């Protein structure tokens, strides 16, 4: 096939079938040039959506050119270079504006019942003066005066003082979030103490507030030496302090790397897989986050107590725990719209550093960490335990994950709201939520039952270790050979579509006995969540002037995205054992045939 490099995509077109694969440059996590072989120069590209692509390029010089172009292209230096600023889905300004208005956080707080007699909207952060990583609109207890807020913010890391993120109306209990106090070994701050007092007073159901420090105790202790730390129970009246032990971004990054190393191994044996799964610790971390969210949920819904959640800076673990906790408590967040609102609120507006964590610009590799991916996985684990509680299916989560990294839409660009306003994202880019909403049909979970949610408004998941599974569709989304070949989801959606068509057809029949349309009756193909074809319509000129590198070879297994496996098995590359050659090969050996395409003629080389 032929490889094309454009300003935004890498496109591979198979010469035999005209199938094409395109990869957004922003999705490329790493490019690696392997040592020269007889067939050519291998190039391995790892993507942030866990796709791994191997190319074999015959001439080494070409390979090097591609390699260096990709290195440059994958890491833009400024925001303006990101795809979102050039992406144009043929919408006018009004449609774009409407897209951005889809999610309204003010309305969301109103839905929760805020402002109310105990909680109010404050304009203290109107100009991002008090805390530049917080949004402008913040909700605080009525009794928290401006001096208290300002004083408290000075005592909190990055000025992130305690604010409301979720209000559990039924018991008037609040979930608040902040960063760690700058307490060091003995420092105190009266304003901060009165701030917590105010939060406590705003809830008549409970005499105390839980303070959840989501870090392991050791990490919190270590922070004291740097003048930070955690709340001293002696200084704050009426608090109950609790560590929950979620590891930091560096541990999580390493853990995912280990996991991918294990699952990326060829001819992996079952034992090595399970041992690797264990030693990566990934599922242990996932369980820790869900455990913390359950603790939060129980405190709020069970005891009716308010909870203040923080970690170090209050934008990673805090975001995970607050959002997952809200998801457990409130069925609204388990709908498609509600889930968008939840992400907008707890992740985007409260300043999860998407740009740093997802490596949008060439930044510090130590700041990169799969924190948001973990959140999505926690949600997925819950959807597996409660198949009837979520309006959306797995593909919704995967699609969000895809676009967090694609930089195709403006939502996740930058690190905080202030930065986004400076970039004028609302005027210059499009909103992902509007796009996803327009495709809502593709993300529906056919098993969703609002009645079940009414019966079980608060989810009580089990975190016994055997309920956690490896999320194959996330980490091996593109390995066609690994997935079920047939999908229940797709079939159910097709059946439902058919029955809907039937229904509407019947109505048409009853109303008008117009018989002309009846041919459509039977089968109407239903679109499942096909990847949004990202056709770059504008600015297609490549840096290298549509460089064409001929005579490519590509590995069959990783090239095509399969949202749902096909039912047929012709495309299978995997074999159970070689029939020709040595018979002592261990277990099932996956031997993807490397097809070298020479002038469009396929030749098996392996």
């Amino acid at each position, binding site marked *: 096939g032929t490889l094309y490099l454009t300003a935004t995509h890498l496109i591979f077109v198979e010469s035999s079938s005209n199938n094409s694969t395109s990869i957004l440059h922003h999705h490329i996590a790493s490019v690696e040039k392997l040592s020269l072989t007889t067939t050519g120069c291998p190039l391995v590209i790892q993507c942030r959506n866990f796709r791994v692509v191997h190319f074999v390029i015959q001439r080494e010089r070409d390979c090097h050119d591609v390699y260096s172009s990709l290195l440059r292209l994958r890491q833009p230096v400024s925001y303006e270079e990101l795809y979102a600023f050039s992406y144009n889905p043929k919408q006018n300004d009004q449609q774009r504006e409407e897209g951005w208005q889809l999610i309204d956080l003010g309305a969301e707080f109103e839905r929760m019942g805020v402002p109310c007699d105990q909680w109010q909207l404050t304009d203290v952060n109107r100009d991002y003066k008090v805390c530049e990583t917080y949004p402008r609109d913040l909700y605080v207890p009525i009794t928290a005066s401006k001096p208290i807020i300002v004083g408290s913010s000075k005592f909190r890391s990055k000025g992130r003082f305690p604010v409301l993120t979720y209000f559990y109306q039924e018991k008037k209990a609040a979930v608040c979030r902040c960063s760690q106090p700058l307490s060091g070994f003995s420092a105190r701050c009266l304003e901060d103490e009165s701030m917590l007092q105010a939060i406590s007073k705003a809830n008549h159901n409970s005499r105390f507030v839980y303070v959840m420090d989501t870090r392991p105790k050791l990490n919190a202790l270590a922070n004291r030496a740097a003048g930070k730390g955690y709340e001293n129970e002696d200084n704050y009246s009426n608090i109950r302090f609790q560590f929950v032990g979620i590891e930091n971004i560096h541990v999580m990054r390493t853990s995912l790397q280990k996991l991918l190393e294990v699952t990326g191994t060829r001819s992996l044996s079952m034992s090595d897989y399970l041992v690797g799964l264990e030693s990566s610790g990934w599922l242990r971390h996932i369980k820790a986050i869900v455990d913390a969210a359950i603790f939060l949920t129980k405190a709020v819904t069970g005891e009716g107590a308010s909870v203040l959640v923080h970690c170090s800076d209050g934008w990673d673990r805090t975001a995970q725990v607050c959002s997952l906790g809200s998801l457990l408590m409130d069925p609204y967040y388990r709908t498609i719209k509600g889930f968008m609102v939840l992400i907008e609120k707890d992740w985007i507006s409260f300043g999860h550093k998407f740009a740093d964590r997802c490596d949008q610009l060439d930044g510090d590799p130590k700041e990169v960490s799969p924190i948001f991916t973990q959140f999505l996985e926690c949600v997925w684990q819950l959807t597996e335990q409660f198949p009837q509680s979520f309006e959306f299916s797995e593909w919704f989560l995967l699609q969000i994950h895809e676009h967090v990294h694609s930089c195709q839409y403006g939502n996740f660009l930058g690190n905080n709201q202030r930065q986004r306003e400076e970039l004028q994202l609302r005027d210059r880019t499009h909103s992902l939520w509007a796009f996803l909403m327009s495709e809502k049909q593709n993300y529906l979970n056919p098993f969703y039952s609002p009645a079940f949610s009414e019966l079980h408004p608060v989810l009580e998941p089990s975190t016994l270790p055997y309920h956690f599974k490896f999320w194959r569709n996330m980490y091996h989304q593109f390995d066609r050979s690994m997935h079920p070949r047939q999908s229940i989801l797709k079939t159910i959606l097709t059946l439902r579509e058919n029955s809907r068509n039937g229904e509407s057809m019947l109505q048409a029949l009853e109303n008008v006995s117009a018989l002309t349309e009846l041919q459509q009756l039977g089968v109407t193909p239903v679109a499942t969540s096909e990847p949004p074809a990202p056709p770059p319509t504008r600015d297609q000129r490549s840096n290298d002037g549509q460089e064409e590198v001929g005579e490519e070879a590509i590995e069959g297994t990783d090239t095509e995205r399969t949202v749902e496996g096909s039912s047929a098995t012709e495309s299978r590359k*995997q074999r159970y054992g070689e029939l020709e050659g040595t018979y002592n090969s261990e277990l099932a050996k996956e031997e993807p045939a490397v097809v070298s395409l020479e002038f469009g003629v396929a030749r098996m080389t392996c």
Partner: protein
Amino acid sequence: MELSEHIKTANVEDAVLRQPLHPAARGTLCVTGHHLLFSDREESSPQHFLLLLRNIDAIEKRMSGSSGTITIKCKDLCVLQLDIPGMEQCLNIARSIETLSCLENVSEMYPFFYRPSDQSLKDQWGLSSTEKHYSQMTDLHDRWRVSSVNRDYSVCPTYPQAVIVPKDINDEMLVKAAKFRHGGRFPVLCYYHRKNGMVIMRSSQPLTGANRKRCREDELLLQAVIDGSDKGYIIDTRSSQQAQQARMTGGGFESKSCYSCWKRLHRQVERGKALQESLIKLVEACGNDSHNMDRWLSKLENSKWLSHVQTALSTAGLLAECVERDGHSVLVHCSEGTDSTLLISTVAQLIMDPCCRTLEGFLALLEREWVQAGHPFQKRCAHSAYSHARLQQESPVFLLLLDCVWQLLHQFPLALGFSEALLLRLATEAYASSYGTFLCNSDKERSVAILSMKTLCLFQALLRPKERRCYANPLYERTELAIWPSVHPQSLQLWRGYFLRWTQQARHLEEAQEEIRNMVILWEKMFEYVCFNFFMLS
């Protein structure tokens, strides 16, 4: 000795029953010859709970003061607890359970007493037979025949009376070949692949022994199988080392020099004690709620159960690949030819043959390849994972088969005509059943016990319309293609429906399954209605 003599205390008032997913209930406990019966005291809606004693794998007694607690661990992995007032009553009941749950004499077992009103002993017994199987495959009639050399079970005590063999081989040759095979299990046909006329044969190991004995008739028999083709494959489900060692005890393998057209492939598929221990470890890990994530994953790994599933599936895949892709006939065997041999050939048939994937087809396959082919169910399923008894011949080979089938179902949810519920039911029935199907170890024993006259047939019962509704796959769509399972470790999963059956989460999944069934039924009705109207109007 009458069963009732084992019952010292038949009735206990005021007992408390605790079972998973239910609140504790107080009521009356009864012990009968084959059951534990518990009725609670709810006036409005009395609940009865009936447990087949045969289903009990192990019990533990704990005395405290004047009352005792019996923990009952069932073969279907359910764990119950009974609080019984009165120490003596408690001990009596425990003793009755211990004796009555492992009766040795077949004719005392419950299937001989089970007489439901809606089924009759006169109903047909069984779905399939060698003759029926043969008559369905007209393509093979010119090269294969049904031999009744084993009509009195003298040639091979574990084979049925009729077997399918090549036409060129007469009965005398079969008798000689049988003498050369372990337990007399000479190579017989078990599957004919319509697409290319290739076959799967199965047997036990040849008795070559240390001094490399040969058997002319056995060689001719195999030669007749590949008649016209250049070669065949022998899949030995032992490692080549194990096969070598077997020669020391009189067993062995087909050597290259004597069977020149056959190519041997060794794949070690675990069976016997190792498999039983694997199950015990897995169930132990699933039953312990105090494990953290790391401990759980290491226990899961340590049990090796999933490795066994992977090996079994990939060996079956290899077998199917030899037949379907490579176009050659295959002989599969292990040592006795009654365990992993059957496992591999059954899974391979499911992969290749759409006829085996229907509800009836699957049950008939099980009947042919397991019940009639002589898998010793009674020995293998005497105890399950909880038993403290010393292991004898127990081995969950059949359970491993069901797990493999579940993995297929998981990967091809539309290609199989039956549901997970059927697999769960079979897993339960194989260990403790009201039906006679899984009693005894071979066709011979079954005919001695006259099972077909004195007990009811499970497979027939499962096909009744009422039962069929639960066990058919609502999404089934027949495909003529082979269904090649992925055997990547990432693609295989723990069969949660079985191993974690008694948890709330399994219930949620079951509810979702039920939801699918209802939706599909609704839509089908709807569709019919629409079609009907369409028809009327046009």
